[in-house]
């Protein structure tokens, strides 16, 4: 009985510490996702205008923004991290393919935007 209460107390302390950890990375994730969403709008405009060169530059910039907080997302939710990497990778690769496949790119942009919106909330 005593050991059980001791273990419960320890688990509570650990949970407290880890909850605090996730609270701090939350703001980092939110601001990072907001930045990515802003760049993603530019990627979409470039794709709509069939401007492959601008789309490539913007996509790389978006990836750089992602690299700054991807570890925090990965630590928080590995599945979500992988879900974001998928359309992000597809967009980066897709803007380099000539001619631009607007249909697939638009789909992937919408998919990424939806995932980022979840992080911003």
């Amino acid at each position, binding site marked *: 009985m*005593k*050991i059980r*209460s*001791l*273990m419960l*107390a*320890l688990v509570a*302390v*650990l949970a*407290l*510490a880890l909850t*605090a*950890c996730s609270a*701090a*990375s939350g703001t980092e994730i939110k601001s990072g996702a907001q930045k990515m969403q802003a760049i993603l709008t530019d990627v979409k405009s470039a794709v709509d205008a069939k401007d492959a060169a601008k789309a490539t530059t913007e996509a790389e910039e978006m990836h750089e923004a992602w690299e*700054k907080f991807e*570890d*925090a997302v*990965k*630590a928080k939710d590995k599945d979500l991290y*992988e879900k974001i*990497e*998928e359309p992000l*990778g*597809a967009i*980066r*690769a*897709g803007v*380099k*393919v000539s001619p631009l*496949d607007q*249909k*697939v790119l638009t*789909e*992937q942009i919408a998919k990424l935007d939806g995932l980022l919106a979840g992080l911003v909330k």
Partner: protein
Amino acid sequence: MRIKRIARLFLTVLLLTVSLTGLASATPSGDLQEADQIVAQALTQAKQGDLSAAKATYDSFHERWRIIEEGIKAESITAYRTIEEEMATVAFALLQNPVDGSQLSSGLQRLQTANQTFITGGFPADGGQKQQSSGNISGLLTLLEQAKAQAEAHDVAGAAASIEQFRHSWLDVEGIVLTASGQVYGDAERDMVTLSAYLTSKQPDLTKAITLIDQMHNYLAPLVSKTSYNVFDAATIVLREGLEALLVTVALLAFLKKAGHPEKGRWIWGGVGAGLLVSAVLAVAVKFLIGTGAFGSNNFLIMGFSGLFAASMLIWVSYWLHSKSSLVEWQRYIREQSTSALATGRLLSLATLSFLAVFREGTETVLFYVGMASSIAMKDLLLGLALGLGILAVIAVVILKWGIKVPMRPFFLVSSLLVFYLAFKFTGMGVHGLQLAGLLRATVVPYLPTVDFLGLYPNWEGTIPQLLLLMGGLATFVWQHRRDRIAKAALVATQ
């Protein structure tokens, strides 16, 4: 006996951790070699025009990659990025409708080339695990140089971001810094906070920031040449990190002995053991699941919150111990204790306190040793650890033996002062931990001194709570002293 048991537990956990490191680092190219056969199969299918089969085969490579990617990333970040880029090209080709067979084949071909380049060692070894060497101090210096250039160009946000990155990378390097110089280690942790304060305050002070960056660069640069560890380095870490935890533990044990309940010591040791175990498990999880870079600020948060939590409990223990130094109080306590056992709730608090004392720096300490393992002979590491633990054990035995011989009143007075000192230091260090994590701001006060021994740092956020604590402590001391005198006078009057 108990110290031996704890030492044995710690060694077992350490050996397990170190052997896990060895197991994990031996596999990346072998793993990728195996996974690359799946890519080869997908390529054959794509060339034969069986695109749906190629997609299914590629998907299984993708799943395999998610399992092995960390190992490759740890060995070469360039390889990791190149492979991920080629994978994205393949993924995009597969998303198109209809799928272009030749484009898919060329993507798979390029992916295979990237895989083979890694397998044959063609990529630079610039991954996370290699950063445990002095190369990573060079990385920190580069970040400082970058921040300085940005500050000189009045790019405040850029400089602040570089320093933020510096703080994230710190955990990978701090072991090297600590063993090279405790002074530099303390200075760097203090200056990181001050530098961030200069750069992120409403009116950034770029001149002071640049001066401070130069100072940090000057004291960190000589450490670049440090590439390996020796026995004394291994001993230093456990001594430095373990001494405060030991003082808390010993104070609690000595109290139980004095109170006539030495058998309840197992609660304290239970807390210590749990602290070691949780620290080790968390450290292994951080090393292999999250990555020390991502854990950087979380480690500061653990140090910060557990430090403050432990400080508040220590304040209570200090008050309690001090109240027992009063003759009247002690006699009343002994009377009560002879009829009732120590309450489970109180024992649980003592166990939690010893747990926090260990856990506060435990994860970091285990990470130090895991990081060290690749740059020190196993014999030296174990010898150093044994040496450090041995010295701690001697200190513990001396205090416990001495403690029991000291008369009751001075014993409680001295131990309450010792515990108060630790509460004072943990308060300062706890706030400092939260500042390192970026959760609390730092308002720099240049004329305040830095005293590592007291956990005193030159900013208001840490110093004000410490001052309040000091004033509260003094007031309590005076009030209790007066109350004791009145009680004694009353006792004399009735006799």
